[in-house]
């Protein structure tokens, strides 16, 4: 699903120098996923110890219920935002405006529905959602324009919309908390498909589709190429402007979809709080998933694991009974620990000094950069 799709078969390695240099191969994606998955497993074990019924899943009225199902449902928004963020980060960029875009999406959809004469109709919900996504597309275009055409540093360019976007969302909702009564819309968060939460199905489908498109077409390779060495890519004829623009638009769309799910969950939109700090959770998910903030190689599967991890962590805080004052501190400590665990350099430092020669030139890219 991630790094292996478009690679040619390992090949019987013909040619004159058959034996040597196996060590030079790209490390397999499974190996890179080891640490985030391990961290997730540890977190789940902690939860089971605290609450033995944590893994219980009930089937009731044809719907699945249980803590794990909650996690699967609740991780949908972060997963979507992190998905877009993964591609942006792979091009050496960052998108800070995703929270604001999510709020705008929720605002547009809710205001449309609340103002409609047929507030509860499916068509109203559909039109509202598509209008919201169209707005997000435009916002993504704006971000991409600033970064790829005007050439503003991504962190600054998207900061503009991060700040202004909240204001825009408030303008749309007129500063009010807008509530909607539309079952089709709230099903986006609380509905089920074949006993599985609809939000999870949507998120997983978007992730799978993206992974497929990115790795079946050449997009993934070109994104990585631009992220690793922009100048060399330009000289090889890569249209890096188009590619960078595309990933920001995609990120905007993902953020919009996430915003819709969040709004559907509360059946309302609060322009001030919807998707607040979701950009940070998303960036964390990307980093935990093994994509370097320096750009280049990315792992969509890693990001999925990262998003689930973040959501599980939030749940753990409640489940284990950490006092709410210590909530953020606890989260921070866990994130630091995971990032250290992932950094080859930190691992090497922990290891006892029976040193084997490190693979040459593989400068250990510290993934702890964010923490």
């Amino acid at each position: 699903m991630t790094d292996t799709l478009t690679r040619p078969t390992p090949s019987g390695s013909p040619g004159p120098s058959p034996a040597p240099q196996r060590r030079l191969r790209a490390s397999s994606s499974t190996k890179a996923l080891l640490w985030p998955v391990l961290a997730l497993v540890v977190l789940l074990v902690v939860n089971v110890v605290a609450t033995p019924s944590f893994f219980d899943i009930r089937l009731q009225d044809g719907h699945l219920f249980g803590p794990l199902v909650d996690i699967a449902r609740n991780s949908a928004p972060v997963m979507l935002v992190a998905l877009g963020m993964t591609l942006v980060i792979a091009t050496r960029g960052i998108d800070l405006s995703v929270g604001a875009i999510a709020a705008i999406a929720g605002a547009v959809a809710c205001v449309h529905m609340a103002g409609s004469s047929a507030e509860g109709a499916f068509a109203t919900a559909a039109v509202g959602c598509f209008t919201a996504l169209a707005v997000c597309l435009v916002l993504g275009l704006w971000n991409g324009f600033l970064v790829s055409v005007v050439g503003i540093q991504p962190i600054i360019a998207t900061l503009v919309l991060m700040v202004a976007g909240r204001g825009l969302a408030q303008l749309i909702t007129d500063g009010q908390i807008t509530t909607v009564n539309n079952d089709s819309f709230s099903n986006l968060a609380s509905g089920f498909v074949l006993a599985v939460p609809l939000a999870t199905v949507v998120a997983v489908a978007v992730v799978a589709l993206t992974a497929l498109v990115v790795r079946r077409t050449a997009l993934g390779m070109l994104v990585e190429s631009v992220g690793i060495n922009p100048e060399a890519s330009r000289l090889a004829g890569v249209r890096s402007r188009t590619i960078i623009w595309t990933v920001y638009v995609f990120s905007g769309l993902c953020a919009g979809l996430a915003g819709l799910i969040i709004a559907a969950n509360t059946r309302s939109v609060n322009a001030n709080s919807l998707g607040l700090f979701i950009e940070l959770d998303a960036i964390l998910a990307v980093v935990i998933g093994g994509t370097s903030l320096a750009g280049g190689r990315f792992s969509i599967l890693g990001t999925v694991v990262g998003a689930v991890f973040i959501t599980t962590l939030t749940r753990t805080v409640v489940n284990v009974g950490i006092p709410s004052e210590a909530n953020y501190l606890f989260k921070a400590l866990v994130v630091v620990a995971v990032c250290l665990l992932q950094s080859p350099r930190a691992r090497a430092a922990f290891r006892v000094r029976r040193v084997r020669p490190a693979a040459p030139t593989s400068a250990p890219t510290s993934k702890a950069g964010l923490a």
Partner: protein
Amino acid sequence: MTTTDTDPQTDGAAAPRPAPDTAPSAGVPVVEMQGISITFGAVRALDQVSLRLFPGEVHALMGENGAGKSTMIKALTGVYTIDSGRIVVGGEQVEFGTPAASQAAGISTVYQEVNLVTNLTVAENMMLGREPRRFGGINTRAMNRKAGETLQRLGLDVDPASVLGDHPIAVQQLVAIARAVDVEARVLILDEPTSSLDADEVAKLFEVMRTLRDDGVAIVFVSHFLDQIYEISDRMTILRNGRLVEERMVSETSQLELVKLMIGRELEALEQIDREVAATDSADTGAPVMKVLGLSRKGSLETTDLELHEGEVVGLAGLLGSGRTELARLLFGADTADTGEVQFRSERRRLRSPRHAIDRKVAFSSEDRKAEGVIGDLTVADNMLLALQASRGWLRPIPQSTRTTLVQEYIEKLDIRPADPQALMRNLSGGNQQKVLLARWLITQPEVLILDEPTRGIDIGAKAQIQATVADLARQGLSVVFISAELEEVLRLSDRLVVMRDRRKIAERRNDGLSVSDVLEIIAGEARQDQEAHPRD
């Protein structure tokens, strides 16, 4: 063929070629590496290699790319830990766990790429991490004075308070050496220090090296330029495929002998090119593939015209900064020209980006392989197919079967090692990276191929192969622009020679038996004319 079985401890008696007649070897080596082996996974990078460094001697470490030179250096500098063998420094056996330990033992290294901070001053760079302190802050004055003393000792006229980035690369390189020497080095390792230097700058570097040698420093010198090895080195150790071939005195080894020892076979390839190039002499007829009229760019090239014909190799000769690279970049649209236009067959246009050029079947391999060619974290296969994929657009991926065939074909054709499409590009040696980049462009089936320093810093085997490939492509009708600092190489390959100087074209000659001194004469002759025209300069 190797002498690896010799027990290094019985040095005086049975060691290979002790060469007792020269002064330094009579002394005790400052560093002895004995029977060093290093294994990466299943690969033996070094197999029982020994190396002796004597004080006051320049020791050349010779071998093709991948012979184990870098691994040997990294074993000595503590970057890699050795699996077996021992390192003796100043009579004591040592074990370097970290680069810092090696440095503390007096072993300093200057790597091929200058690893300094360009926006700090020269003195700050030299004293980085060991600045003289006063009142808890850095004592700038003392720092400048100390740095100035070191620079003076090396005979370098550089203001310690000036910003490093304002100096040319050569000076930066010398500052890097000054920094390395400043830590009371007993051993100085110079890994390809001359690959981006001009002849004058190399002379300056050698002066510094001689000063240090006379002070008793043991210098390890790695270079692909055989002439430079012969000019500066006293002794050499030759490696091949991770094994020791021989230790030799430079004065007792002819260049031909050395090359044979390095590659283990005769160098027929190069001679063959000479004959074949002489045979193809039919260019210049027919319409030009690409024609440039009045191309110029402020600060890099004055108005220049150029014509490229089918099947012709045009060599751009000139010193560093003469405008040869600048012209190449403008031909490709890597930089945009201020004036002038490019004519492809019958179509005229201005090149605004590399894409314009690529769409018109022009290919360009930059002189800066690392910054402008290699995508280090992608695989060899991805690197090779990048240009083709980019011109197809991301929606039309190259089919899997085509990918495999193309990559396999070029790995074999250009003898790329390791022959593994999945190897990460950054782990390849320079020569093999260069071959991958050449393949990247050949896969796009260009009509014009612009190669800027395609053979810089790569070993003689890879060099011969790239030259042979270029000659072969020209014979098949490709039009090639070939740039190299090595005039011999330019002359060997070119049908026509364009001589650049002071950012403009000063001469264009058919290459019918031009010699290096002819070309130098043209460059120098222009200088004389300049002097006559402007006597005050």
